[in-house]
């Protein structure tokens, strides 16, 4: 409550003195347990702001849609640590200028919400480095452990069953702040590179393409997983890929705005020669 009130005041001040043109936050949704994105441009709109533990959506995708930042004005945004990581990646991949983003950081334990220090992505580097050291325990979950015990065949069958439900609504892609491509590979239709059919093979293709494109870029915000209308446990795929890049390349996505993308950069002294 206190955090929410303080942030309301801050947002109003920054809007009033012209430091930001808009703040993206949360407001009550259609049921008591739902929150929905809120775009604050006036102090009346700031009154609707809600900040509590049920504010979970990573809102950073809105920053790169429909030219919001093209006028070079600054935009404020409410972000959990994962959201700050996605700002860093978007900046590192030249999708936005991190200086244009004013961060209202928050995190929660249980129902308790607390503000995070800092207004620009840079100021969160200490916190993000700490996260890198201890992410694995946080995200461990029974289903993941179950899958890790499976052999290759069982795993294949498990995912085949899960993907058979996919309807290719692309809600996972649309919800993901890292899926900003103007033309997704599955939408490249001259020629059609990836089948649009939502049969099991097509669904496999889609989900595997996305898993690869998100490797080393996913910040584990859970947007895709929550958006999926048929409840495919997408978080597990991204979690696994995040572990792979951490183990293999010591890469924790989104540590800074200058971090090199792990799968789009190489070092001359790399022991693997295939890329050269």
């Amino acid at each position, binding site marked *: 409550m206190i955090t929410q009130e303080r942030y309301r005041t801050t947002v109003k001040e920054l809007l009033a003195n012209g430091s930001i043109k808009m703040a993206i936050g949360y407001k009550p949704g259609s049921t008591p347990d739902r929150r929905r994105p809120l775009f604050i441009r006036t102090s009346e709109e700031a009154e609707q702001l809600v900040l509590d533990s049920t504010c979970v959506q990573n809102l950073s995708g809105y920053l790169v849609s429909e030219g919001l930042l093209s006028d070079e004005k600054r935009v404020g945004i409410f972000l959990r640590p994962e959201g700050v990581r996605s700002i860093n990646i978007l900046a590192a991949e030249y999708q936005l200028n991190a200086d244009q983003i004013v961060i209202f950081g928050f995190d929660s334990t249980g129902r308790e919400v607390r503000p995070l220090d800092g207004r620009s992505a840079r100021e969160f580097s200490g916190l993000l480095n700490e996260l890198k050291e201890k992410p694995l325990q946080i995200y461990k979950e029974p289903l993941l452990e179950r899958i890790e015990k499976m052999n290759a065949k069982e795993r294949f069958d498990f995912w085949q069953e899960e993907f058979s*439900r996919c309807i290719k609504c692309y809600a996972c892609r649309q*919800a993901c702040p890292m899926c900003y491509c103007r033309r997704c590979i599955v939408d490249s239709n001259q020629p059609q590179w990836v089948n649009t059919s939502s*049969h099991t093979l097509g669904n496999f293709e889609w989900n595997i393409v996305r898993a690869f494109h998100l490797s080393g870029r996913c910040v584990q915000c859970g947007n895709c997983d*929550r958006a999926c209308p048929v409840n495919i446990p997408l978080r597990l795929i991204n979690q696994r890929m995040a572990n792979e890049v951490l183990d293999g390349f010591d890469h924790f996505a989104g540590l800074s705005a200058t971090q090199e993308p792990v799968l789009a950069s190489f070092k001359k002294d790399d022991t693997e020669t295939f890329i050269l």
Partner: protein
Amino acid sequence: MTRILFSDKLDNCVAKWRSAGLAVIGPVQEEAISRYAAVEKGTDFDFGTVLPDRSLKELFFPQTEPMLRYTIKKNEIDTADFTPPQGKRIIFGARACDASGLEIDDPLFGWDYKDEFWFQRRNESVIVTIACTKADDFCMCTSLKLEPDSTKGADVLLRPIDKNKGWLVEELTDRGREAFALISEYLQESSEPALPTVVVPEKFNLDACVTWLKNPENFESKFWKEISMRCIGCASCTYLCPTCHCFDIQDEGDTYSGIRRKNWDSCSFALFTMHTSGHNPRSTQSARWRQRIMHKFNYFPGKFTVNSCSGCGRCSRQCPVDMGITETLQAISNL
């Protein structure tokens, strides 16, 4: 006196229908989602959910459907048609909104070209609607001038009686009577009353909305941008909708052979209207959201005299950013 189908006889009915060659389909709760799926015995049904997550339309208009196989030779092209899977079936336990959805889409699939995939399945399916005795925050059939016990699209209407003991039977069509004649030995005369159907509050004034939408001045209204700002442009709402029916035809294969398929498509996608030149007449998400609303409540009724929405609420229930038809129409009624 009405006839009652007691739930403890459901197993017998399922067996009877199956032995008469009818596939039995009903609401089923799977580990991850609920949907209408094949059942083999009475206990496979789950009548407890307000509404299955996935709609009934996909049993008539699946997400991907092969239409023909082609082989391209030097001087000719061979094609072989796929026919829709044959087989009679009974859908036991449809919700009124889902059954209505089928009837809403009938004229669309039959106005210029008769879609054989749709109509073959329609002709071979008996729809048994169960009137709703509970609803959730998102149900809004009454706002669309339908009811929890609408008979639209149904061959038989069942009304639940107390303590999940069974249902009062109202046969509505010959197809329904035929299917229930097969199980007549399990039906009993009774005077037990039906449970009242759930009261679903009206959420908006449909007529006022339609009038507003029909006014050409409102096409460019600022309202569209405001209401759809948070829409992320997925196809969740259209693909779960029992009446959304857009599809794309795609050839899947290589230069020499392949399969032509009919795949779901959605007006939420930017690609939906993208021209070859790169120009997109619906270049913003607000234009796409406007299209969805206009199509359902202005263009579709203009052509087929029925709204393309049965009020199931799935679009709002499932939206990743808590949008949906309801909020938009509520906002329009309050303009």
